[in-house]
C-alpha cells in the first residue's frame, strides 16, 4: 500500500535530460530514508510540458516539480515525502501563487485550455504495467464491444462520433472502417501508422511511450469491426523507447489473453505484430507503408485500388494513425454523442499538437478542435521568448503551410486550415518570430522533401529538385521576378501530377509562404535584401565606427580573419573575406556590429 506516488517523466524529451538518473536517485533516496513501503516511484509517459523537463509529479498532492536535477532529489525526499512540505522553490512557478500557496496544475495557463482525451493517460499511468491501464478503464471498451455490440454498431458509433483521421488528411475514420468491413475476404488486416516523420512532430511517439495499451485496445476494436484477425504497427526504429514500451505492452496483453484466441471468451481472435521502419518519410504514406510491411522497398503505388479493397498482401486493410486510435476506446465507452459534442461542425473532438519553434512552452498540447491559434501561441504556449513578435506558424510540416499573424484568430480545424492554404497534418506546430525568413523556411521544408522523395515518379523526383534550385537562386540574390511565376507554375504541376501525398503536398510550404509573404520574396529579388537577416548571401556585416571601442575581441573571434584594426581604434570588416557566420556580433559587447 503506497500513500504517495512519485511520477517521473520517462518520455523521450525528459529522458534526454537525464530523467532516468533522477528516477534512480529517487529510488535510492527513498530506500535510504526507509520510505520504500510508503512511496512508489513510477516512470511515466510525457506530461506535455517538455520545455520544463525533467518533470516529476508527486501524488496525492499533485505537486509538479520542473527542471529537476539529481542534486534536488534528496531535498524533495527529505522535505516533501518525509515531512510533507512541498519544496515550493523547485515547483513549476506557474503552480505557486503569490502567497506561496500551491495551485492545481489544471489552473495553469499551459493546462487550463487543454482537453486531454488521446493523451489522458500520458503522465498518469505506468506505461509498462497493464494493470494500471486497466485501473483507468483500460480494455473496458474492448470488453464492451465484444460482448455487447455487433461490428456494424461499432462502425456506426465511430461514424456518428465524427472522428476523422489524425494523421493529417482527415478522412472520416468510420467510413474507412465501413468500406473495409464491406469487402469479403479470407483475411483482412488492421494497421497502425506510427511512422511519424514530419520535422518537429512527436505526438504519436508520446502516445506510444505514455499509453501503449490504448493503441492495442483500439486496434483490436477496429479488427472486430472490420473482421480482421491480424494487425501490424508500423513504427520507425528511431523511436526506441516507444518500440520498447509497445513490445512490453503487446506481450502483457498476450499474457492476459487480450490479444490471441477467443478474447473475453468470444470467438473473436486477434494478434498484433510490430514492423520497424527505417525512417523513410514516404513510408508514412499508406500504400508505401504497406509495401514496406510486405518486405519490399517502401514506395507508393497508385490508388485505386484503395487499401480497404486491396491493401496489405492484397487483402482489405485499414490503416489509422496512432492518435486516431487513441480516441477510439473513449468513444466506445462514453458514446458518439459525447465525442461529437466537442469541436467544430465538421471536426469533432480534440487534436494533439507538438508545439515547437520560437515559443516559451515547447511541448505537447491537446486542444478541442476550433481553438484559435492565438490561444495556443499566447496562452498555452506562453508567447514568444525575448519579446519578439509572432510572425507565422507552420502546421502540417513539409506538407502543410504557414498561418500568418493576420490569421491568428482562425479557429483550428481541418477545413479552416485547408481554406487558408495550410493543412492539419499530423500535428507539428512550429512557431516563427520576426527573425525567421519565410523564403528560408520554404527552402528548409523543400530540402526535406527533396531528400525524402522516393524517386518513383518524375514530378516529385525532378520537380521538387528544380523548385529548390529556383528558391536557392532567390536566396543567393540571383532571382528574377519571372522566377516567381515559374515557381508557381512548377508547384501547381507537381501538386497535380505526383503519385502520392508526399509529392502532391511538397510545394505547399512554398505556395503558402508566397501567398502571405510575397513581399519578402520580392525584397530578396529586387533589393537583394533578406528582411529577417537570415539568407547569408544577402547579408553584409558592418561595424559602427562610433560605437566601436577597438577592444579587438571581434578580430580575434573572426574565423576568416576578415576584421582588421588597431587597439582602441574603430575596426572594419573586409566583406570579400567575411563568411557571415555572425560570431563577431555575438562577441561584441558594445552592439557595434550590425547585419543588414
Amino acid at each position, binding site marked *: *500500500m*503506497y*500513500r*504517495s*506516488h512519485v*511520477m517521473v517523466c520517462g518520455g523521450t524529451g525528459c529522458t534526454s535530460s537525464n530523467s532516468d538518473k533522477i528516477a534512480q536517485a529517487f529510488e535510492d533516496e527513498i530506500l535510504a530514508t526507509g520510505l520504500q513501503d*510508503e512511496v512508489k516511484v513510477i516512470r511515466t509517459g510525457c506530461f506535455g510540458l517538455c520545455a520544463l523537463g525533467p518533470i516529476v509529479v508527486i*501524488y*496525492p*498532492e*499533485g505537486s509538479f516539480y520542473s527542471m529537476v536535477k539529481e542534486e534536488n532529489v534528496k531535498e524533495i525526499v527529505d522535505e516533501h515525502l*518525509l*515531512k*510533507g*512540505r512541498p519544496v515550493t522553490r523547485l515547483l513549476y512557478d506557474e503552480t505557486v501563487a503569490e502567497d506561496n500557496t500551491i495551485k*492545481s496544475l*489544471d489552473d495553469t495557463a499551459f493546462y487550463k485550455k487543454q482537453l486531454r482525451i488521446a493523451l489522458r493517460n500520458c503522465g*498518469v499511468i505506468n506505461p509498462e504495467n497493464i*494493470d*494500471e491501464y*486497466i*485501473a*483507468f*478503464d483500460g*480494455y*473496458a471498451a474492448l*470488453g464492451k464491444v465484444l*460482448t455487447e455490440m455487433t461490428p456494424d454498431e461499432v462502425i456506426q458509433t465511430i461514424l456518428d462520433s465524427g472522428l476523422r483521421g489524425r494523421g493529417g488528411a482527415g478522412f472520416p475514420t468510420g467510413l474507412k472502417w465501413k468500406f473495409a468491413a464491406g469487402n469479403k475476404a479470407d483475411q483482412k488486416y488492421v494497421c497502425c501508422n506510427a511512422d511519424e516523420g514530419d520535422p518537429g512532430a512527436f505526438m504519436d511517439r508520446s502516445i506510444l511511450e505514455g499509453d501503449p495499451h490504448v493503441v492495442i485496445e483500439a486496434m483490436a476494436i477496429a479488427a472486430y469491426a472490420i473482421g480482421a484477425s491480424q494487425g501490424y504497427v508500423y513504427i520507425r526504429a528511431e523511436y526506441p523507447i516507444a518500440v520498447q514500451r509497445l513490445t512490453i505492452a503487446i506481450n502483457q496483453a498476450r499474457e*492476459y*489473453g*487480450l490479444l490471441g484466441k*477467443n*478474447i*473475453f*471468451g468470444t470467438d473473436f481472435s486477434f494478434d498484433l505484430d510490430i514492423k520497424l521502419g527505417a525512417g523513410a518519410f514516404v513510408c508514412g504514406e499508406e500504400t508505401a507503408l504497406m509495401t514496406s510491411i510486405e518486405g519490399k522497398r517502401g514506395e507508393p503505388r497508385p490508388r485505386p485500388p484503395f487499401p480497404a479493397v486491396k491493401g496489405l498482401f492484397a487483402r482489405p486493410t485499414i490503416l489509422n494513425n496512432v492518435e486516431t486510435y487513441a480516441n477510439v476506446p473513449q468513444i466506445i465507452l462514453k458514446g458518439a454523442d459525447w465525442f461529437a459534442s466537442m469541436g467544430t461542425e465538421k471536426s469533432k473532438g480534440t487534436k494533439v499538437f507538438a508545439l515547437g519553434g520560437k515559443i516559451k512552452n515547447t511541448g505537447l498540447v491537446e486542444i478541442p478542435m476550433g481553438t484559435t491559434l492565438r490561444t495556443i501561441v499566447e496562452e498555452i504556449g506562453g508567447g514568444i521568448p525575448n519579446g519578439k513578435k509572432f510572425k507565422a506558424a507552420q502546421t502540417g510540416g513539409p506538407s502543410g503551410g504557414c498561418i500568418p499573424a493576420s490569421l491568428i484568430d482562425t479557429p483550428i480545424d481541418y477545413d479552416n486550415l485547408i481554406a487558408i492554404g495550410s493543412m492539419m497534418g499530423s500535428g507539428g506546430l512550429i512557431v516563427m518570430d520576426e527573425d525567421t525568413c519565410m523564403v528560408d523556411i520554404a527552402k528548409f521544408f523543400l530540402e526535406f522533401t527533396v531528400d525524402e522523395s522516393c524517386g518513383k515518379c518524375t514530378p516529385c523526383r525532378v520537380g521538387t529538385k528544380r523548385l529548390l534550385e529556383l528558391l536557392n537562386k532567390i536566396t543567393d540574390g540571383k532571382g528574377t521576378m519571372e522566377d516567381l511565376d515559374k515557381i508557381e507554375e512548377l508547384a501547381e504541376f507537381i501538386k497535380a501530377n505526383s503519385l502520392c501525398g508526399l509529392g502532391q503536398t511538397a510545394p505547399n510550404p512554398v505556395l503558402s509562404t508566397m501567398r502571405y509573404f510575397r513581399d519578402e520574396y520580392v525584397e530578396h529579388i529586387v533589393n537583394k535584401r533578406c528582411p529577417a537577416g537570415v539568407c547569408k548571401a544577402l547579408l553584409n556585416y558592418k561595424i559602427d565606427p562610433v560605437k566601436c571601442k577597438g577592444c579587438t575581441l571581434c578580430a580575434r573571434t573572426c574565423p576568416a580573419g576578415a576584421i582588421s584594426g588597431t587597439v582602441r581604434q574603430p575596426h572594419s570588416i573586409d566583406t570579400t573575406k567575411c563568411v557571415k557566420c555572425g560570431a563577431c556580433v555575438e562577441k561584441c559587447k558594445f552592439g557595434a556590429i550590425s547585419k543588414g
Partner: protein
Amino acid sequence: MKSLQELAAIRDRMKQTVNTREAAHDTTRIVVGMATCGIAAGARPVLNAFTEEIARRELSGVLVTQTGCIGLCQYEPIVEVTMPGQDKVTYVKMTPDKVARVVSEHIIGGKPVAEYTIGAR
C-alpha cells in the same frame, strides 16, 4: 482474459492506485502534521494507518497527505480533517489505534469523534 469479471477484478484491485492519483481533485482531506515534532511523537504510523484504512474500505475521493508543524507541538501527532461543507476538525495525540474509529465515524459517518479532538482537552 476469459470474461469481463476478470477485467473488473483487476480494476478493483488497482483502485487504490487510481485514488491516490485522482485524490488531488477531490475534497475530503486528511492532513497529518509531519514536522520533526510530529514525526518524533509517532506521526508516521498514524499516517500509514490512515492510508491503509482508506484503502481497506475502498474509499475514493479522500486525500491523505502531510503538512509541516501545525504549532501545537505538545499535542502531536495532530491530524486535521477537512470535509466538504464542514469546519476543519483537529484531532490531537493520535495513535494508529484511533484511526479506524475516525475513518468509520467521521470520514464515512460524517460525525467527528469528539473525544479525540482538541476541544476535548
